[in-house]
C-alpha cells in the first residue's frame, strides 16, 4: 500500500491500516524514544501515546510532510514533554539549570544506561557516551540522538524539528564538541 492510500485508509478509520502502521513504525518510534529517554518503561508509554495521537488526529494530517516525519515529530514532542516534566521535578528549588550549561561537568555523567542493542565489548563505553548525551542541552541531545544513534538524515531531522538544515548541522556540531569536552574531563577523572 503506498503512503497516500495508507493515509486515506487511516483517515477512514480502517483498523487494518492502523495495524499496518503499527507494524511498520512501532519499532522506529520505540527505538527513537528509547534512545532519547534512556528508559524502557517511559519509551513504551511514549510509543503508546504517539500511536494514540496518530489514531485520534490522523484526520488533521494534511500530507505536507512524510508520514514517518510527522510521526517522528510527535515522538520528539512527547519525549520533550516527558524530559521537561522530569527536570521540573528534579530542579524544583534549584536556581542553576543544566540546559544553560554548554558543557556538562564530568561528575554529572552517569554511565548507567546499557542499551540492549549494543555489542558486549562496547557496552561500557556506550554507557559513558549515553551518560554524556544526557547532560547535553535538550535540542542538541535530540538532534545528536536522531542522527548518530537512529541514523536519521540531516534533512529529515530539520523537518522533524521544524528548523533549517544549517541549524541542525550547527546543533550536531556543537553537540559533538560538548561531548568531546565532557568525555575529556570524564577521562581525566576516571580513566587515567
Amino acid at each position, binding site marked *: 500500500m503506498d503512503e497516500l492510500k495508507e493515509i486515506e485508509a487511516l483517515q477512514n*478509520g480502517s*483498523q487494518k491500516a*492502523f*495495524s499496518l502502521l*503499527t507494524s511498520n513504525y*512501532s*519499532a*522506529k518510534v*520505540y*527505538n527513537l524514544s*528509547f534512545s532519547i529517554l534512556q528508559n524502557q518503561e517511559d519509551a*513504551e508509554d511514549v*510509543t*503508546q501515546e504517539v*500511536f*494514540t495521537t496518530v*489514531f*485520534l488526529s490522523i484526520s488533521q494530517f494534511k500530507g505536507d510532510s512524510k508520514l514517518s516525519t510527522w510521526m517522528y515529530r510527535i515522538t520528539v514532542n512527547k519525549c520533550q514533554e516527558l524530559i521537561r516534566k522530569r527536570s521540573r521535578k528534579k530542579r524544583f528549588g534549584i536556581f542553576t539549570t543544566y540546559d544553560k550549561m554548554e558543557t556538562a561537568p564530568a561528575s554529572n555523567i552517569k554511565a548507567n544506561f546499557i*542499551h*540492549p*542493542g*549494543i*555489542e558486549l565489548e*562496547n557496552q561500557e*563505553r*556506550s554507557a*559513558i*557516551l*549515553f551518560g554524556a548525551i544526557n547532560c547535553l542541552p535538550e535540542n542538541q541531545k535530540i538532534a545528536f540522538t536522531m542522527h*548518530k*544513534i537512529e541514523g536519521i538524515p540531516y534533512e529529515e531531522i530539520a523537518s522533524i524539528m521544524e528548523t533549517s538544515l544549517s541549524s541542525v548541522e550547527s546543533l550536531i556540531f556543537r553537540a*559533538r564538541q560538548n*561531548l*568531546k569536552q565532557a*568525555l*575529556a574531563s570524564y*577521562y*581525566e577523572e576516571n*580513566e*587515567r
Partner: protein
Amino acid sequence: METKKEIWIEQTLSSVNDLKHVAISSKLSQRLADIPREYSLLNQRIPMKAVWLAAASIALLLTMNILSVRRVKKQSITQETSIYSDYFSYTEILE
C-alpha cells in the same frame, strides 16, 4: 600523533556505531493493537444521538423553568396591583 585520551574519546564516540534496533515487547504490541478498539468503544459508549438528546432535554427544562418563573412574576404583579387598587378605591369611598 593522537594521545591516548583522544583515542579513548573517539572510540567512546563511535561505540554506538553498530547499534542494533531493539524489537518491541509483545506487551507493547498488544497495547498498540488495542488502541482502535479502546477508542472505538469510547465512541460507542456515548453515541452522538444520546448527547444531542441530553442537550435537548436540558434546553427544554431551562425554557420551561424560565417561562414558569415569568408567569409567576406576572401573576404576582397583577395580584399586587389589584390589592392596591382595591385599597385606593376603599379610601376614596371613605373620603
